């Protein structure tokens, strides 16, 4: 009985914020004291097809995909190099790799903004993409360190000893084994970029309007309906990630069974 009460409490705690966002996004004006809205409709959602919210969604998607791909590629190389070694330099290397993850994005942005301006990247999507890559590469590097720490490098040696060239070993042995970790690292990089706020604001100088920046502006302007619709769109990729991860775990369980 007590565990069932706990379950109900958890459902209220975890789902109420999401349910409320859904209600406010279709409320058509959510003035006090109404609970469900003054003029329910899909006006806020229609703005996603075009207008600022739609444009911001496209910008965020492009930045996220670019960051995911770039961070997965660089993280793979860095993580592999770090995982192959042992001892003091490796520990220090890992601490260094942890720094972009641990440094708050606001502080990173403040430190980097001038350099980006000097390089002509301030206020550009390319600059924001490069800025997003900084923490994303930190995350994917640490992810690939974990992958390669339990990696059997003997497989590569065996392929080479059996006559495979370096390229054949890469394409036929390593790449198929890394397909899944690469996809997961790309998703990780995508999510890091997708949720960025201060880095985008500082390096993008308000000219690069990602979905997070748009939602922040809308909520500060009191446009609750539009902000809630934008916030719900921000939820979609993370929820997709949970679905994929759950599917991946089930698939692994099937393979093990």
């Amino acid at each position, binding site marked *: 009985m007590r565990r069932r009460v706990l379950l109900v409490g*958890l459902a209220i705690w975890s789902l109420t914020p999401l349910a409320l966002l859904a209600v406010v996004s279709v409320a058509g004006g959510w003035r006090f004291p109404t*609970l469900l809205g003054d003029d329910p409709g899909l006006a806020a959602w229609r703005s996603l097809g075009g207008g600022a919210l739609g444009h911001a969604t496209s910008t965020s998607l492009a930045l996220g995909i670019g960051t995911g791909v770039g961070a997965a590629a660089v993280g793979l190389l*860095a993580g592999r190099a770090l995982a192959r070694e042992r001892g003091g*330099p490796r520990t220090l290397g890992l601490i260094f790799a942890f720094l972009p993850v641990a440094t708050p994005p606001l502080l990173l942005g403040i430190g980097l903004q001038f*350099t980006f301006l000097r390089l002509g990247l301030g206020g550009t999507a390319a600059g924001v993409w490069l800025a997003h890559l900084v923490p994303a590469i930190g995350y994917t590097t640490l992810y690939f360190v974990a992958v390669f720490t339990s990696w059997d490098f003997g497989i590569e040696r065996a392929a080479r000893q059996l006559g495979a060239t370096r390229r054949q070993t890469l394409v036929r042995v390593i790449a198929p084994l890394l397909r899944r970790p690469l996809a997961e690292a790309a998703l990780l990089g995508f999510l890091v970029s997708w949720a960025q706020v201060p880095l985008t604001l500082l390096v993008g100088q308000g000219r690069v309007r990602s979905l*997070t920046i748009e939602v922040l502006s809308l909520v500060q302007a009191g446009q609750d309906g539009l902000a809630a619709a934008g916030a719900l769109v921000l939820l979609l990729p*993370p929820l997709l990630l949970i679905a994929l991860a759950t599917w991946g775990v089930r698939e692994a369980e099937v393979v093990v069974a």
Partner: protein
Amino acid sequence: MTRRSLRPLAVGAAVAAPVFVGVGYAAGASIGMWGVGAGDALDPRRFVRVLASPVTLESTLWTLRVAFISTLLSAVVAAALAIALRRADRVGRWGRALAVLPLPIPHLVAAVAALLILGQSGLLARVAFALGAISGPAEMPPLVFDRGGVGMTIALLWKEIPFLFLVAASVLATRGEALEEAARRLGASEWDVLRRVTWPTLWRGLLPASVAVFTFVVGSWEVAVLLAPSDPLALPLLTWERYIDSDLSRRPDAFVLALLGVSIAAVAVVAHELATRRPADTRGTAR
């Protein structure tokens, strides 16, 4: 040291290079060497002036307090949930799924939802009005932009409990069960098992993740900008305010504050490394 043995160091340094560039720039700008507000002469005294100012002190203490309370409460709730939901029955499965649901949701979304729920005219105020507990938004106790940081703490709990729950559940599954079973066979009561085996295992396992959560919360800007009070300002907001100050002579203050934030993060990184190593060292000693 050979070139090969230095390779991981070089790789780690390359990954962290933008942080070094950023910190280097902030260090120079904080003493007026370059950047907006740089004068003819260097001003190292700015460091002392900014760090010793009551505004910085109050802001730092407020931020550390909110971060500490949020992290501590998150860890305690996560540990309790991990213990309560460890059984593989239907309640356990649904409970675990609900507990981790907020994990991948961006902090900005959590802050927007918290504003809509806890704000003066938010969902709680509407429910209180419908129940006749208040007659208008003005009678609702302030839960956002409040000096106590209640709203910010609740939003952070919603976001951080799932992460710590995941870690706690994983610690219990990998390290806890065998030790608990051994204690039971040796005659320990359920209370003794909880007090002497489960809890020590959990807190040691949760410590590194808690340090990571604390660091994140200290630097969190998007939650603070929507939920934190204007007096005192949270450290990230104070840094931001100085950075965009129309008085150019005050802008270098932002770099001093940024370096303060980076220092807190650096201390946390070292604490994280130590916390990660401690269980292994303990195991080594026990052997």
